């Protein structure tokens, strides 16, 4: 199926729904069919921004998060009580041109085995249990247009290719959108973020408790890793991830997360020397998040610290593990009904590697400050404006000030 054909279906669905709903007056409620057995929601978002020549905002879909055009339709189909099929189809394009892509972001079945117990099982292409930002990917969930660095910024690591030594790794610093290595796939391709907010993994997850429970625990077993999720396992083993969330009061949500899964792809491992091919080469990630809200204020902080182990092949050796830590703090304040301002500070750091001549962080540390305002013109039409300043201590472009504007239509 061509890209154009793949795009046609979700576009037709969204336009058809919009036309139908507009004809009835824009719905104040979620669209439901078959006595509530089918529930539909959708979102159309277009973002414009100047070209990001420094690739600070590029995602693992090889386009800038500030130039996205996104059409999404989500449906919850509940044939019987306690059984729900959830599907989220999304088409993404780029206001600067280029190809479009269309995928089922989410496609899973949810089962609640006992009616009165807050215990749910989900299987299929499922949302990450790790952290927070990965489950709030839609514009209607956010005030700022950008995505936290840990969930978006492309590091120089790849699952399908690894550096032969520390020099090769250090040489790639700040080129996360197209690092190339001599082991594995020898072409240039995008690197991975610490965790991706743009794709879901495939597997099964279970949660005990919910958003109003004092404690909720979620555990998932998936094919990929946080940084490289996938439909099929390409790395010889599953990832285990978990999050424990505390809700001591409605004002607070405090969470701790952990994930451990094989990172390096089978295609790379198969080509390694015998002494190295048996390694597990995992990505282990820990996370912490906290949210406080009261009145018109919301403050959210999240930490994601990932640790990768790569094969040690030649001198100068890669000094495992490779650490990267992302920290973001965001504050929101509602200025007036429908008008919210937000500010986020973000930093992504890396531990040092020793090459032949230099000892440097294995990727260039990057910082971002983003401020913006959202205005709900109506309940279902939201306009946003933001400006972000990015800085990096290496690379041909070391800083970028990027204004952006976005319109979101949701139902």
């Amino acid at each position, binding site marked *: 199926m061509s890209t154009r054909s793949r795009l046609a279906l979700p576009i037709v669905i969204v336009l058809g729904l919009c036309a139908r709903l507009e004809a009835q007056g824009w719905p104040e409620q979620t669209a439901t069919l078959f006595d*509530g057995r089918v529930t539909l929601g959708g979102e159309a978002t277009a973002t414009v921004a100047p070209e990001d020549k420094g690739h600070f905002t590029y995602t693992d879909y090889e386009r800038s998060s500030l130039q996205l055009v996104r059409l999404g339709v989500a449906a919850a189909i509940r044939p019987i009580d306690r059984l729900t099929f959830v599907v989220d189809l999304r088409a993404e394009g780029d206001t600067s041109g280029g190809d479009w892509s269309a995928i089922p972001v989410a496609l899973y079945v*949810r089962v609640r085995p006992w009616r009165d117990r807050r215990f749910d099982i989900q299987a299929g292409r499922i*949302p990450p249990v790790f952290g927070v930002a990965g489950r709030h*990917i839609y514009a209607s969930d956010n005030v700022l247009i950008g995505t936290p660095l840990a969930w978006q910024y492309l590091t120089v690591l790849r699952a399908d290719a690894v550096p032969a030594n520390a020099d090769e790794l250090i040489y790639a610093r700040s080129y996360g959108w197209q690092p190339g290595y001599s082991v594995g796939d020898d072409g240039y391709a995008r690197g991975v973020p610490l965790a991706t907010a743009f794709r879901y993994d495939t597997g099964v997850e279970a949660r005990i408790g919910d958003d109003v429970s004092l404690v909720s625990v979620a555990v998932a077993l998936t094919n990929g890793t946080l940084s490289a999720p996938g439909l099929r396992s390409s790395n010889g083993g599953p990832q285990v991830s978990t999050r424990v969330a505390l809700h001591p009061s409605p004002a607070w949500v405090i969470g701790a997360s952990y994930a451990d899964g094989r990172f390096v792809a089978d295609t790379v491992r198969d080509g390694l020397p015998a002494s190295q091919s048996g390694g597990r080469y995992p990505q282990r990630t820990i996370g912490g998040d906290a949210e406080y809200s009261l009145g018109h204020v919301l403050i959210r902080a999240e930490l994601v610290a990932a640790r990768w182990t790569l094969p040690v092949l030649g001198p100068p050796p890669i000094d495992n593990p490779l650490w990267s830590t992302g920290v973001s703090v965001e504050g929101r304040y509602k200025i007036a009904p429908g008008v919210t301002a937000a500010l986020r500070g973000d930093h992504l750091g890396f531990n040092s590697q020793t090459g032949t001549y230099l000892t440097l962080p294995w990727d260039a540390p990057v910082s971002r400050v983003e401020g913006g305002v959202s205005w709900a013109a109506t309940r279902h039409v939201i306009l946003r404006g933001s400006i972000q300043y990015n800085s990096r201590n290496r690379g041909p472009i070391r800083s970028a000030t990027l204004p952006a504007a976005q319109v979101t239509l949701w139902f």
Partner: protein
Amino acid sequence: MRAAAGVLAGGLAMTAVSAGQPRGASVRGRVELPHVPVMVERRPASGELGEGPPRDAAEWRRAVVYFETAPKGAFEAEDVHAQMDQRNETFVPHLLAVTVGTTVDFPNDDRTYHNVFSLSKTKRFDLGRYAAGRSKSVRFDRPGVVRVFCEIHSHMNAFILVFTHRFFGVTDPDGRYQIDGVPPGTIDGEAGSRDWRTGALIGLRFSKTYMHDGRAKNIRDAILLHGGPGSEAAPCIELFKKYTPDNQDILVRYVEAL
């Protein structure tokens, strides 16, 4: 009685009875809703890790019956309070009718935060997030319809109707309403066709009764009942009567198809 009546949330059949009383008349009747909406489901969110907490069904069968115009001097703004609760992710009541100047309290009786807001032209407000056991209030100084939502739970919604007079009634679960205290001096004649809001023909097939007081049981009867003395529709009704039964059936089927 001279009155115009409107029904929020739809409703084509209404019975109105006025009775002179020393302190005013009462108007009472029953509203039948042709469609009862299903319970509003949560917006599908693929990022959820499971079902949301249990919630209550809103009282969707309620309607408000009101006079479009009120007798002069019938109302003086009072500093009164009304309440719209937040309980199990539902606004209770789902439909609230108040007079201008009323302060509505929004207590949170749930286990979680809510953020009540409205972007309606009649009243824009945002109460922010507050926890169970606390309450915030809004005073409504202009007449109109106010749509109320929760920013956190998109399936939560409610209506507040703000009137410049007190001649309105919210129906009970059976659709019955009563408007009391209509000043006697305002009863100056029979209710004529121009005093009643004529229901749209589109969707008429969903109605179980017809005419403002529900006395017509089918569309043919409703057409014939429009032909009384002085009716503007009388010539048309006479023409209808001259049709053959088959042609009358064709016309009725056409109306039912709308």
